[in-house]
């Protein structure tokens, strides 16, 4: 049953803060960095007003913020933090430790270009630098989705089959600072019932005893977190993480469905959000807020009879390669859009991984091209999308030679 909701004028950052307010994590530790600051600023207001019972830890850096998450989550707490750009890079070292210690930490990232030159505006380079850290990564499209996904994130990460940290990405400024009418649950209890009042802490067998996988002093056998494992066991622990990652796609879909039940909103199958892909000859693959602009333009092209579809990748890690194979097989032209620095490689990460997935198809798309766009907050307006779509139509009609990679919106 869809629960009662109210509309609020919220930007993406406030939407995440409101989601936190409704989930009420046990611990939030954070350090401010644009464009993420509003998340923790708003949330610290909720804490100061006594509206949540969360322990708010003010720390001196992002490295400390994520380290505080390690301690909190290892103690069995539900823990959340948020950052962006260089802050995320400062967390880099600890991100691997969080995932290897199987701590379901929720991290909000307001995607921002990485220095230098110093820039505070949107691109996905910060998140892409962490793509192999063993985290689940979801890219949202607007403030509403940021609210919804933040709530879902706790449920996905804390699933006892998974126990992996999760990063919820929202485009800096384009989502983080852009206000829209966001539907939030009227009664926070709906959210509490959805994610659970407290974090479920799994039990493990240790020396014949059943113990909580946490630093609980009441454990009959004390549990040590973060010891060393050498060439004799390190590989086995990595293998466990890989296995947990494999279970994520199904859980993301299930949580997406369950969330639909209470909210009336769902995002494709949770992993990818296709728009008119089935009958399309040309498909644009993209992540984040740009998908909205592209659908807006594609709608006009559809009216003119151009069979164009937009496939938004929502879950980047684990990479939904099976979905891409299923949806992109046999297409005439697939154009993959990366909002990421890509020096010295054939294409951006979204392109390369899409390409790898498609290689194994018998009926692979005839042309797969890569566009790099929007670096450092460079605008990606409808006029530019039109230019790109026109080029894709020419490639489809054989009037223009296909290419590997092009840059959109840079002066050359």
């Amino acid at each position: 049953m869809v629960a009662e909701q109210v509309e609020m004028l919220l930007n993406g950052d406030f939407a995440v803060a409101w989601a936190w307010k409704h989930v009420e994590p046990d611990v939030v530790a954070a350090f401010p960095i644009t464009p993420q600051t509003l998340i923790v600023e708003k949330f610290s207001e909720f804490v100061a007003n006594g509206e949540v019972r969360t322990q708010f830890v003010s720390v001196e850096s992002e490295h400390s913020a994520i380290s505080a998450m390690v301690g909190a989550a290892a103690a069995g707490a539900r823990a959340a933090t948020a950052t962006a750009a260089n802050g995320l890079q400062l967390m880099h070292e600890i991100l691997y430790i969080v995932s290897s210690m199987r701590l379901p930490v929720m991290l909000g990232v307001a995607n921002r270009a990485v220095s230098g030159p110093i820039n505070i505006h949107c691109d996905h380079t910060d998140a892409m630098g962490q793509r192999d850290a063993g985290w689940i990564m979801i890219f949202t499209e607007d403030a509403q989705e940021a609210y919804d996904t933040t709530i879902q994130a706790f449920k996905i990460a804390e699933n006892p089959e998974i126990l992996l940290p999760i990063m919820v990405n929202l485009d800096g400024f384009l989502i983080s600072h852009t206000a829209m009418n966001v539907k939030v649950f009227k009664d926070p209890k709906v959210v509490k019932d959805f994610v659970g009042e407290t974090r479920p802490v799994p039990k493990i067998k240790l020396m014949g005893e059943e113990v909580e996988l946490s630093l609980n002093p009441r454990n009959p056998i004390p549990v040590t977190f973060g010891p060393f494992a050498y060439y004799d066991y390190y590989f086995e622990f990595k293998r466990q993480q890989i296995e947990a990652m494999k279970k994520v796609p199904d859980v993301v879909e299930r949580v997406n469905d369950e969330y639909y039940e209470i909210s009336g909103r769902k995002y494709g199958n949770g992993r990818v959000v296709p728009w008119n892909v089935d009958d399309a000859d040309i498909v644009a693959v993209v992540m984040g807020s740009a998908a909205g602009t592209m659908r807006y333009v594609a709608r006009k092209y559809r009216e003119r009879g151009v069979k164009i579809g937009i496939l938004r990748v929502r879950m980047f890690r684990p990479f939904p390669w099976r979905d891409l194979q299923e949806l992109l097989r046999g297409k005439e032209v697939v154009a993959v859009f990366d909002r990421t620095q890509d020096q010295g490689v054939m294409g951006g990460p979204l392109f390369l991984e899409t390409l790898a997935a498609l290689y194994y198809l018998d009926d692979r798309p005839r042309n797969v091209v890569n566009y790099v766009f929007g670096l450092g907050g460079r605008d990606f307006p409808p006029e530019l999308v039109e230019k790109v779509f026109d080029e894709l139509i020419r490639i489809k009609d054989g009037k223009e030679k296909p290419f590997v990679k092009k840059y959109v919106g840079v002066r050359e």
Partner: protein
Amino acid sequence: MSGAELRKWNEVPIAGVPWKFSTEYKTGDWRSERPVIDHGKCTKCLFCYIYCPEMAIKVHWTSDGSKPEKVEVDYNFCKGCGICANVCPMKAINMELERR
């Protein structure tokens, strides 16, 4: 680190938590030099016992517990750092090349 009972990935607890005591992890096989005590020179001053970072010096006490009787190296855990030989005032500990 004997290879006798190495378990598979799905046979060990997740998150890298240890499922046995650290004393079962015999760190002594890292050693390239082993300390050998010359019991003739040793005065049982216990400098080595105090300075050993690995608690790898074993002291045998007299039955009434009043005096140390004999000092030994626990080669299961001695990593061969040589601190004991360095601090020994009687030069009673000699570092010998490990031949394994």
